[in-house]
Protein backbone atom coordinates (compact mmCIF):
# COMPACT_ATOMS: atom_id res chain seq x y z
CA UNK A 1 0.00 0.00 0.00
CA UNK A 2 2.76 2.47 0.88
CA UNK A 3 4.42 1.44 -2.34
CA UNK A 4 1.33 2.44 -4.32
CA UNK A 5 1.01 5.74 -2.45
CA UNK A 6 4.65 6.42 -3.18
CA UNK A 7 4.00 5.65 -6.86
CA UNK A 8 1.12 8.14 -6.96
CA UNK A 9 3.24 10.86 -5.36
CA UNK A 10 6.03 10.21 -7.89
CA UNK A 11 3.36 10.25 -10.62
CA UNK A 12 2.07 13.65 -9.49
CA UNK A 13 5.57 15.12 -9.57
CA UNK A 14 5.94 13.59 -13.03
CA UNK A 15 2.61 15.16 -14.04
CA UNK A 16 4.07 18.56 -13.22
CA UNK A 17 7.05 17.86 -15.46
CA UNK A 18 4.78 16.60 -18.28
CA UNK A 19 2.58 19.71 -17.83
CA UNK A 20 5.56 22.04 -18.31
CA UNK A 21 6.98 20.07 -21.25
CA UNK A 22 3.63 19.88 -23.10
CA UNK A 23 3.03 23.59 -22.48
CA UNK A 24 6.39 24.64 -23.90
CA UNK A 25 6.33 22.24 -26.85
CA UNK A 26 2.72 22.89 -27.88
CA UNK A 27 3.41 26.12 -29.83
CA UNK A 28 6.15 24.31 -31.77
CA UNK A 29 4.28 21.15 -32.66
CA UNK A 30 0.64 22.19 -32.92
CA UNK A 31 -0.90 20.70 -36.05
CA UNK A 32 -3.83 23.09 -36.00
CA UNK A 33 -2.27 26.46 -35.29
CA UNK A 34 -2.75 29.40 -37.64
CA UNK A 35 0.31 28.53 -39.73
CA UNK A 36 -0.84 24.92 -40.29
CA UNK A 37 -4.35 26.06 -41.19
CA UNK A 38 -3.11 28.66 -43.67
CA UNK A 39 -0.67 26.19 -45.27
CA UNK A 40 -3.67 24.05 -46.08
CA UNK A 41 -5.41 26.78 -48.06
CA UNK A 42 -2.66 28.69 -49.89
CA UNK A 43 1.03 28.68 -50.81
CA UNK A 44 3.60 31.26 -49.65
CA UNK A 45 3.05 34.86 -50.84
CA UNK A 46 -0.60 34.34 -51.67
CA UNK A 47 -3.33 36.11 -49.73
CA UNK A 48 -6.11 33.79 -48.68
CA UNK A 49 -9.38 34.47 -46.83
CA UNK A 50 -9.21 33.88 -43.08
CA UNK A 51 -12.97 33.35 -42.80
CA UNK A 52 -15.59 32.69 -45.44
CA UNK A 53 -19.35 33.09 -45.60
CA UNK A 54 -20.43 29.45 -45.52
CA UNK A 55 -17.41 27.17 -45.17
CA UNK A 56 -15.79 26.73 -41.74
CA UNK A 57 -13.29 29.53 -41.06
CA UNK A 58 -9.57 28.96 -41.62
CA UNK A 59 -8.72 31.17 -38.65
CA UNK A 60 -11.17 31.22 -35.75
CA UNK A 61 -12.38 34.23 -33.85
CA UNK A 62 -12.53 36.71 -36.76
CA UNK A 63 -15.04 39.53 -36.17
CA UNK A 64 -18.09 38.93 -38.45
CA UNK A 65 -18.00 42.65 -39.36
CA UNK A 66 -14.57 42.12 -40.90
CA UNK A 67 -13.25 40.67 -44.11
CA UNK A 68 -9.69 39.47 -43.64
CA UNK A 69 -6.90 37.87 -45.63
CA UNK A 70 -3.53 36.44 -44.66
CA UNK A 71 -0.35 35.40 -46.47
CA UNK A 72 2.67 33.43 -45.33
CA UNK A 73 6.19 34.66 -46.02
CA UNK A 74 9.80 33.66 -45.54
CA UNK A 75 12.21 36.57 -45.04
CA UNK A 76 15.23 34.36 -45.70
CA UNK A 77 14.17 34.41 -49.37
CA UNK A 78 13.97 38.21 -49.63
CA UNK A 79 11.89 41.19 -48.52
CA UNK A 80 8.08 41.10 -48.58
CA UNK A 81 6.09 43.91 -50.19
CA UNK A 82 2.42 44.24 -49.18
CA UNK A 83 0.24 46.57 -51.20
CA UNK A 84 -3.49 47.25 -51.31
CA UNK A 85 -4.61 50.26 -53.36
CA UNK A 86 -8.01 51.83 -52.79
CA UNK A 87 -10.12 53.22 -49.98
CA UNK A 88 -12.14 51.30 -47.43
CA UNK A 89 -13.65 52.49 -44.12
CA UNK A 90 -10.86 50.89 -42.07
CA UNK A 91 -7.95 48.58 -42.64
CA UNK A 92 -5.31 47.21 -40.34
CA UNK A 93 -2.26 45.02 -40.83
CA UNK A 94 -0.58 42.65 -38.40
CA UNK A 95 2.70 40.79 -38.75
CA UNK A 96 2.92 37.48 -36.89
CA UNK A 97 5.82 35.09 -36.48
CA UNK A 98 5.63 31.39 -37.32
CA UNK A 99 3.94 30.68 -33.94
CA UNK A 100 1.19 33.29 -34.30
CA UNK A 101 2.82 35.85 -31.98
CA UNK A 102 1.98 39.40 -33.02
CA UNK A 103 5.19 41.29 -33.79
CA UNK A 104 3.91 44.49 -35.35
CA UNK A 105 0.60 46.07 -36.24
CA UNK A 106 -0.58 49.28 -37.84
CA UNK A 107 -3.84 50.76 -39.10
CA UNK A 108 -4.87 53.10 -41.90
CA UNK A 109 -4.25 56.25 -39.82
CA UNK A 110 -0.53 55.44 -39.82
CA UNK A 111 -0.11 55.85 -43.58
CA UNK A 112 -0.56 59.43 -44.80
CA UNK A 113 -1.87 58.62 -48.27
CA UNK A 114 -4.29 56.04 -46.92
CA UNK A 115 -3.15 53.28 -49.27
CA UNK A 116 -1.59 50.23 -47.68
CA UNK A 117 2.04 49.96 -48.82
CA UNK A 118 4.36 48.13 -46.47
CA UNK A 119 7.76 46.47 -46.84
CA UNK A 120 8.77 43.85 -44.34
CA UNK A 121 12.52 43.38 -43.90
CA UNK A 122 15.01 41.89 -41.47
CA UNK A 123 17.45 44.33 -39.81
CA UNK A 124 20.29 43.18 -42.11
CA UNK A 125 18.13 43.57 -45.24
CA UNK A 126 17.27 47.07 -44.00
CA UNK A 127 20.96 48.03 -43.92
CA UNK A 128 21.28 46.89 -47.55
CA UNK A 129 18.09 48.71 -48.58
CA UNK A 130 19.15 51.99 -46.95
CA UNK A 131 22.12 52.26 -49.31
CA UNK A 132 19.85 52.57 -52.32
CA UNK A 133 16.07 52.57 -51.83
CA UNK A 134 14.42 51.07 -54.94
CA UNK A 135 11.86 53.23 -56.74
CA UNK A 136 8.94 50.92 -55.99
CA UNK A 137 9.55 51.35 -52.24
CA UNK A 138 9.58 55.17 -52.29
CA UNK A 139 6.22 55.56 -50.54
CA UNK A 140 6.39 52.40 -48.49
CA UNK A 141 6.42 52.03 -44.73
CA UNK A 142 9.37 49.85 -43.73
CA UNK A 143 8.83 47.35 -40.95
CA UNK A 144 11.84 45.65 -39.44
CA UNK A 145 11.15 42.20 -38.06
CA UNK A 146 13.80 39.77 -36.97
CA UNK A 147 11.87 36.66 -37.99
CA UNK A 148 12.33 34.00 -40.62
CA UNK A 149 8.94 32.68 -41.56
CA UNK A 150 5.75 34.44 -40.59
CA UNK A 151 2.24 35.56 -41.43
CA UNK A 152 0.88 38.93 -42.57
CA UNK A 153 -2.83 39.54 -41.96
CA UNK A 154 -4.85 42.38 -43.50
CA UNK A 155 -8.26 43.09 -41.96
CA UNK A 156 -10.89 45.45 -43.29
CA UNK A 157 -14.13 46.65 -41.70
CA UNK A 158 -17.44 45.89 -43.44
CA UNK A 159 -19.95 48.30 -41.80
CA UNK A 160 -22.96 46.74 -43.58
CA UNK A 161 -23.93 44.50 -46.48
CA UNK A 162 -23.62 47.31 -49.04
CA UNK A 163 -19.88 47.48 -48.32
CA UNK A 164 -19.34 43.74 -48.66
CA UNK A 165 -18.49 43.72 -52.37
CA UNK A 166 -16.27 46.82 -52.24
CA UNK A 167 -14.25 45.51 -49.30
CA UNK A 168 -13.95 42.02 -50.82
CA UNK A 169 -12.70 43.61 -54.06
CA UNK A 170 -10.19 45.71 -52.11
CA UNK A 171 -8.77 42.62 -50.39
CA UNK A 172 -8.81 40.61 -53.64
CA UNK A 173 -6.50 43.26 -55.12
CA UNK A 174 -4.10 43.10 -52.16
CA UNK A 175 -0.66 41.83 -53.13
CA UNK A 176 1.85 39.96 -50.99
CA UNK A 177 5.01 39.87 -53.10
CA UNK A 178 8.53 38.54 -52.63
CA UNK A 179 11.10 41.11 -53.84
Amino acid at each position, binding site marked *: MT*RLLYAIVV*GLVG*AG*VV*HAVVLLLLPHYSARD*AWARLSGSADFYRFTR*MSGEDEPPVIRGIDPFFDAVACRFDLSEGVVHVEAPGHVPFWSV*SVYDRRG*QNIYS*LNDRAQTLGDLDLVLVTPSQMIELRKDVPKEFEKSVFVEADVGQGIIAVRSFVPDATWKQAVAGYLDNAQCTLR
Partner: protein
Amino acid sequence: MFRIVLPVFVALLVAIVGGAWSVRYALDHGFGMDTLTVGPWQAYPDLGTPGASAYARAAVARRGELPLGRAEGLAFRAFEDGSGAPLERNCTYRIAGEMPTARFWTLYAVDPSMSPLPARGIRAAGLQSSAVLHETNGAVTVTASPNPTPGNWLALDGTGRMILVLGLYDTPIASATEISRVVLPRISKLGCG
Protein backbone atom coordinates in the same frame (compact mmCIF):
# COMPACT_ATOMS: atom_id res chain seq x y z
CA MET B 1 7.98 -8.83 -10.31
CA PHE B 2 4.40 -7.55 -10.23
CA ARG B 3 5.14 -5.58 -7.08
CA ILE B 4 7.68 -3.51 -9.01
CA VAL B 5 5.86 -3.19 -12.35
CA LEU B 6 2.53 -2.03 -10.92
CA PRO B 7 3.86 1.02 -9.00
CA VAL B 8 5.96 2.07 -12.01
CA PHE B 9 2.95 1.72 -14.26
CA VAL B 10 0.76 3.73 -11.85
CA ALA B 11 3.39 6.47 -11.58
CA LEU B 12 3.71 6.75 -15.38
CA LEU B 13 -0.07 6.75 -15.86
CA VAL B 14 -0.59 9.50 -13.28
CA ALA B 15 2.24 11.55 -14.79
CA ILE B 16 1.13 11.35 -18.43
CA VAL B 17 -2.64 11.55 -17.98
CA GLY B 18 -2.39 14.14 -15.20
CA GLY B 19 0.10 16.29 -17.13
CA ALA B 20 -1.86 16.24 -20.38
CA TRP B 21 -5.23 16.84 -18.70
CA SER B 22 -3.94 19.72 -16.59
CA VAL B 23 -2.56 21.54 -19.67
CA ARG B 24 -5.88 21.10 -21.46
CA TYR B 25 -7.85 22.31 -18.44
CA ALA B 26 -5.57 25.32 -17.95
CA LEU B 27 -5.80 26.39 -21.60
CA ASP B 28 -9.59 25.93 -21.75
CA HIS B 29 -10.12 28.03 -18.62
CA GLY B 30 -7.76 30.89 -19.40
CA PHE B 31 -5.39 29.90 -16.60
CA GLY B 32 -2.03 31.63 -16.53
CA MET B 33 -3.12 34.38 -18.93
CA ASP B 34 -2.82 38.05 -18.09
CA THR B 35 -6.54 38.71 -18.04
CA LEU B 36 -8.04 42.19 -17.99
CA THR B 37 -11.42 41.88 -16.27
CA VAL B 38 -14.01 44.67 -16.38
CA GLY B 39 -17.31 43.50 -14.86
CA PRO B 40 -18.35 40.44 -16.87
CA TRP B 41 -15.96 41.34 -19.72
CA GLN B 42 -12.57 39.73 -20.19
CA ALA B 43 -9.75 40.56 -22.57
CA TYR B 44 -6.23 39.29 -23.01
CA PRO B 45 -4.24 42.36 -24.10
CA ASP B 46 -0.96 40.43 -24.02
CA LEU B 47 -2.30 37.54 -26.10
CA GLY B 48 -0.12 37.05 -29.13
CA THR B 49 2.48 39.63 -28.10
CA PRO B 50 6.14 38.96 -27.28
CA GLY B 51 5.27 39.65 -23.62
CA ALA B 52 2.76 36.80 -23.50
CA SER B 53 3.11 34.03 -20.93
CA ALA B 54 3.81 30.40 -21.89
CA TYR B 55 0.12 29.66 -21.29
CA ALA B 56 -0.94 32.44 -23.65
CA ARG B 57 1.46 31.22 -26.33
CA ALA B 58 0.14 27.66 -26.03
CA ALA B 59 -3.47 28.89 -26.11
CA VAL B 60 -2.85 30.79 -29.36
CA ALA B 61 -1.31 27.70 -30.97
CA ARG B 62 -4.10 25.43 -29.77
CA ARG B 63 -6.97 27.66 -30.85
CA GLY B 64 -5.48 28.49 -34.22
CA GLU B 65 -6.22 32.18 -33.77
CA LEU B 66 -4.38 35.27 -34.95
CA PRO B 67 -5.09 37.75 -32.11
CA LEU B 68 -5.57 41.43 -32.90
CA GLY B 69 -2.44 43.59 -32.71
CA ARG B 70 -2.36 46.61 -30.41
CA ALA B 71 -2.73 49.09 -33.29
CA GLU B 72 -5.71 47.11 -34.56
CA GLY B 73 -7.85 46.88 -31.46
CA LEU B 74 -8.88 44.80 -28.48
CA ALA B 75 -11.67 42.22 -28.15
CA PHE B 76 -13.53 41.73 -24.88
CA ARG B 77 -15.54 38.57 -24.27
CA ALA B 78 -18.38 38.06 -21.81
CA PHE B 79 -19.37 34.54 -20.82
CA GLU B 80 -21.74 35.59 -18.02
CA ASP B 81 -24.21 38.35 -17.23
CA GLY B 82 -23.71 40.85 -14.40
CA SER B 83 -25.09 38.40 -11.82
CA GLY B 84 -22.69 35.63 -12.83
CA ALA B 85 -25.19 33.44 -14.71
CA PRO B 86 -24.00 32.05 -18.07
CA LEU B 87 -25.33 33.81 -21.18
CA GLU B 88 -28.07 31.86 -22.96
CA ARG B 89 -29.21 32.26 -26.55
CA ASN B 90 -32.92 32.08 -25.65
CA CYS B 91 -32.79 34.84 -23.01
CA THR B 92 -33.16 38.62 -23.23
CA TYR B 93 -30.29 40.80 -22.04
CA ARG B 94 -29.85 44.53 -21.75
CA ILE B 95 -26.32 45.74 -22.47
CA ALA B 96 -26.18 49.37 -21.38
CA GLY B 97 -23.57 51.98 -20.61
CA GLU B 98 -20.84 54.05 -22.14
CA MET B 99 -18.38 52.61 -24.61
CA PRO B 100 -14.66 53.30 -24.23
CA THR B 101 -12.87 55.60 -26.67
CA ALA B 102 -12.44 53.87 -30.00
CA ARG B 103 -12.78 54.74 -33.66
CA PHE B 104 -15.61 52.21 -33.87
CA TRP B 105 -16.81 49.13 -32.08
CA THR B 106 -18.66 45.93 -32.89
CA LEU B 107 -20.84 43.87 -30.55
CA TYR B 108 -21.78 40.34 -31.60
CA ALA B 109 -22.81 36.97 -30.23
CA VAL B 110 -20.88 33.76 -30.86
CA ASP B 111 -21.37 30.11 -29.87
CA PRO B 112 -18.82 28.37 -27.58
CA SER B 113 -16.69 27.42 -30.63
CA MET B 114 -16.37 31.18 -31.43
CA SER B 115 -18.49 30.96 -34.61
CA PRO B 116 -20.92 33.88 -34.99
CA LEU B 117 -24.57 33.02 -34.37
CA PRO B 118 -26.63 32.65 -37.56
CA ALA B 119 -28.37 35.74 -38.90
CA ARG B 120 -32.14 36.02 -38.62
CA GLY B 121 -33.08 37.00 -42.16
CA ILE B 122 -31.22 40.23 -42.81
CA ARG B 123 -30.60 40.72 -39.07
CA ALA B 124 -27.09 39.56 -38.15
CA ALA B 125 -26.45 38.61 -34.51
CA GLY B 126 -24.29 41.71 -34.20
CA LEU B 127 -24.28 45.50 -34.17
CA GLN B 128 -21.62 48.08 -34.95
CA SER B 129 -21.22 51.59 -33.60
CA SER B 130 -22.19 53.60 -36.70
CA ALA B 131 -25.50 51.75 -37.04
CA VAL B 132 -26.86 52.03 -33.49
CA LEU B 133 -28.88 54.70 -31.71
CA HIS B 134 -26.83 56.58 -29.14
CA GLU B 135 -28.33 58.45 -26.21
CA THR B 136 -27.63 62.17 -25.82
CA ASN B 137 -24.85 61.52 -23.30
CA GLY B 138 -23.15 59.07 -25.66
CA ALA B 139 -24.25 55.95 -23.83
CA VAL B 140 -25.68 52.99 -25.70
CA THR B 141 -28.46 50.56 -24.79
CA VAL B 142 -28.59 47.32 -26.73
CA THR B 143 -31.21 44.60 -26.24
CA ALA B 144 -29.98 41.12 -27.11
CA SER B 145 -33.07 38.97 -27.48
CA PRO B 146 -34.71 36.27 -29.59
CA ASN B 147 -37.76 38.57 -29.76
CA PRO B 148 -37.77 41.79 -31.81
CA THR B 149 -37.42 44.87 -29.60
CA PRO B 150 -37.46 48.59 -30.37
CA GLY B 151 -34.16 50.48 -30.29
CA ASN B 152 -30.93 48.59 -30.80
CA TRP B 153 -31.89 44.95 -31.26
CA LEU B 154 -29.20 42.28 -31.33
CA ALA B 155 -31.09 39.35 -32.85
CA LEU B 156 -30.43 36.04 -31.10
CA ASP B 157 -31.48 32.64 -32.37
CA GLY B 158 -31.37 29.02 -31.16
CA THR B 159 -30.66 27.62 -27.71
CA GLY B 160 -27.61 26.89 -25.60
CA ARG B 161 -24.71 28.93 -24.28
CA MET B 162 -23.37 31.99 -26.05
CA ILE B 163 -20.55 34.48 -25.64
CA LEU B 164 -20.85 38.21 -26.30
CA VAL B 165 -17.83 39.79 -27.98
CA LEU B 166 -17.14 43.52 -27.91
CA GLY B 167 -14.50 44.49 -30.46
CA LEU B 168 -12.94 47.93 -29.95
CA TYR B 169 -10.94 49.11 -32.95
CA ASP B 170 -8.16 51.68 -33.12
CA THR B 171 -8.56 52.28 -29.42
CA PRO B 172 -6.12 53.91 -26.99
CA ILE B 173 -7.10 51.40 -24.29
CA ALA B 174 -5.13 48.71 -26.13
CA SER B 175 -1.99 50.51 -25.00
CA ALA B 176 -0.92 49.62 -21.50
CA THR B 177 -1.20 53.03 -19.83
CA GLU B 178 -4.97 53.38 -20.18
CA ILE B 179 -5.88 49.80 -19.52
CA SER B 180 -6.74 49.94 -15.82
CA ARG B 181 -9.33 52.71 -16.19
CA VAL B 182 -11.60 51.01 -18.72
CA VAL B 183 -15.37 51.20 -18.16
CA LEU B 184 -17.59 48.85 -20.17
CA PRO B 185 -21.38 48.45 -20.47
CA ARG B 186 -23.22 46.34 -17.93
CA ILE B 187 -25.06 43.15 -18.96
CA SER B 188 -28.34 42.40 -17.17
CA LYS B 189 -30.79 39.60 -17.81
CA LEU B 190 -34.39 40.67 -18.39
CA GLY B 191 -35.95 37.23 -18.80
CA CYS B 192 -35.93 34.01 -20.76
CA GLY B 193 -38.08 32.30 -23.39
